[in-house]
């Protein structure tokens, strides 16, 4: 087999269409893995990627370049009221280009919830285990290295240990990591194992072609089959369409543009949306940060961004659970997260080297909360509406209290909330103020780095979009292999689960397509 290659938009201007066995939309964890498996099985594969093709030589570790170049909507994606900033990757490599490397298997508790409450059979830990084994090996998932822990994570670890909350070392997908701290801006050393440097490279070696700067506009269907994907070829500088590209699929189409984008593509195509389930139940692990100031420098801009996790509060019974991790602390991201303006804002930001940040990720969709809804117009604009249910608000407020407790236990001089009017907390006695402060959309900083759901797996076509192997209920040769198939949020960082699920699905697709 002769190797394929990665084309950019500028290179495909005169190539209006291709015909292959499988068209894969998206080159992140899901798309790259599916493409690798299908290409290895001898199929001709075309991968369409809306983002640009960047390599380690491009990754300059500057936020001013990285967020516009490597994130959805140039770093501007958010819920429709702008209350939750959505960090979601967009380049060759998708989310894996900017992922913070944290690798977890799907929790058995979550799989049990899907089997019980969502009627999903045939997807248990034993079924997934061999697929996790393969992808963990390929992306070099380690076993947790105490030397990865920077000062920012050390405070999370120490505080949790003091309170008996069992901090765990995070397994990271790296090889030769120099712990620079810039995973979220693209690794300039290629030490982070991304889909671009692993499964996508495998797919290309096995003959797959990747078309960067190609944004899937429509999936064309004919009765119960998908036959082509129509894409806009984007001009890299302006991000405006400069041409049209059609990829015809002889055997099948695999959607892996990620949660939000894959449901939006189906909605735009008006393909199999009759059940009303497409775009519904979109989950975000809504994330609430809390900062604390220490007497010693923390310098959270350097070092592995995430190396410690605390899952002590993941299962709160009838109440929404949450888990704690840390974000990298760079000037722009911190500037966005810190409320206020002018001198008020400046007085917080200029203490940045002494700031520790802990984040609480709310485990949405496991209780009565229904997540968000994706809307997609024919003009290509995507909207995500995500109401904050009472149960999520309760969890957010409880999480703020627990994080403050943890930071104080770790020796913080003061804890500062990111309410629009920040609270300063210096002891346990101050924590009562948290419950009294207004919490809601644009009243407290929230973001999401984990997008899930919107095209759920399930057995019932009236309550789900695809089956337990990712096949669309209505179209026999259309699959979804990304985070949008999760019936709920995961309760852990989702990237590894997307890889494993795509690996499981792809074996089936190679046989069935």
């Amino acid at each position, binding site marked *: 087999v002769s190797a394929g290659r990665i084309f950019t938009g500028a290179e495909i201007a005169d190539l209006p269409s291709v015909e292959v066995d499988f068209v894969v939309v998206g080159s992140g964890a899901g798309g790259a893995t599916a493409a690798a498996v299908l290409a290895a099985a001898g199929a001709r594969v075309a991968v369409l990627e809306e983002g640009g093709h960047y390599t380690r030589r491009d990754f300059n570790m500057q936020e001013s370049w990285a967020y516009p170049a490597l994130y959805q909507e140039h770093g501007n994606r958010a819920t429709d009221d702008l209350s939750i900033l959505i960090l979601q990757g967009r380049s060759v490599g998708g989310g894996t280009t900017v992922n913070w490397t944290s690798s977890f298997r799907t929790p058995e508790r979550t799989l049990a919830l899907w089997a019980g409450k969502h009627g999903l059979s045939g997807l248990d830990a034993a079924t997934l285990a061999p697929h996790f084994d393969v992808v963990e090996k390929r992306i070099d998932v380690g076993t947790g290295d105490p030397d990865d822990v920077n000062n920012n994570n050390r405070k999370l670890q120490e505080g949790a240990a003091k309170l008996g909350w069992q901090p765990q070392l995070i397994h990271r997908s790296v090889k030769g990591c120099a712990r620079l701290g810039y995973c979220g801006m693209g690794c300039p050393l290629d030490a982070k194992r991304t889909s671009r440097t692993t499964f996508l490279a495998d797919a290309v070696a096995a003959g797959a072609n990747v078309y960067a700067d190609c944004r899937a506009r429509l999936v064309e269907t004919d009765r119960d089959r998908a036959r082509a994907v129509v894409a806009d070829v984007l001009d890299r500088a302006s991000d405006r369409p400069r041409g049209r590209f059609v990829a015809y699929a002889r055997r099948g189409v695999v959607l892996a543009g990620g949660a939000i984008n894959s449901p939006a593509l189906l909605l735009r195509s008006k393909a199999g949306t009759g059940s009303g389930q497409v775009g519904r139940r979109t989950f975000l692990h809504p994330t609430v940060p809390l900062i604390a100031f220490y007497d010693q420098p923390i310098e959270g801009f350097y070092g592995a961004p995430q190396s410690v996790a605390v899952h002590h509060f993941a299962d709160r019974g009838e109440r929404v659970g949450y888990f704690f991790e840390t974000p990298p602390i760079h000037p722009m991201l911190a500037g966005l997260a810190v409320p206020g303006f002018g001198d008020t804002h*400046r007085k917080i930001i200029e203490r940045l080297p002494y700031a520790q940040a802990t984040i609480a990720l709310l485990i949405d969709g496991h209780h009565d909360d229904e997540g968000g809804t994706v809307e997609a117009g024919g003009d290509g604009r995507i909207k995500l509406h995500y109401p904050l249910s009472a149960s999520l608000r309760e969890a957010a407020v409880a999480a703020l209290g627990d994080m403050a407790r943890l930071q104080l236990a770790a020796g913080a001089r003061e804890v500062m909330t990111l309410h629009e009017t920040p609270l300063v907390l210096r002891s346990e006695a101050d924590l009562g103020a948290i419950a009294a402060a207004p919490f809601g959309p644009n009243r407290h900083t929230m973001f999401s780095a984990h997008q899930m759901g919107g095209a759920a797996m399930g057995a019932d076509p009236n309550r789900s979009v695809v089956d337990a192997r990712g096949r669309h209920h209505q179209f026999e040769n259309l699959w979804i292999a990304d985070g949008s198939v999760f019936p709920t949020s995961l309760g852990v960082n989702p990237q590894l689960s997307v890889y494993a699920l795509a690996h499981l699905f792809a074996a089936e697709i190679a046989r069935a397509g």
Partner: protein
Amino acid sequence: VRPSEEPVALDRRRFLRRGLFGGALLVFAGSLPFVFRTTRRGSTPHAPLKLLSADEHAVLAAVAARIVPGDGADTRWPRAEALDCAGKVDALMATVHPDVGRDFRRLLRLCESGFVGLLTAGSPRPFTRAEPVEQDARLEAWRRSRFALLRSGYQALKRLAHAAYYSSPEVYPLIGYPGPPVVPQPPAGTP
């Protein structure tokens, strides 16, 4: 402008549901035709504008000047103008979905409106002609508004200005951020 077009009179639940983009208030803003007639162009763009008109740029520059620290007590911090915050935001917003760009322009129109300033903060002048303390009061009124849509509008302006400012290497030393480490270039001939 007829009273029925007052933002406060519009259905609040509709604001909450629709949010900033697609919100009725921005449609209303599009119907304020004379807003820019009195706009003060305090600064000239550093480079040709890609999305905004010169008036819209002037409003954005005036907003950014108050959002970022440079106009405040500590004079070590560069001003928004020095870092071309408005120009950077213009360049960024020229690459997002055209409808989002259109909404952003309407938001600037709304921000400049003395009528809206009067309703929200008792400040009847165009934003670009208001005193700094008055400008801050208007931003503050949006920030703390009980109307979700005004809060969203404030956040859009705040985040874009802060993103342009704090991603500028000129401010790194003031934050105590040494900047990215120097890494070896990959060997020639490797990907």
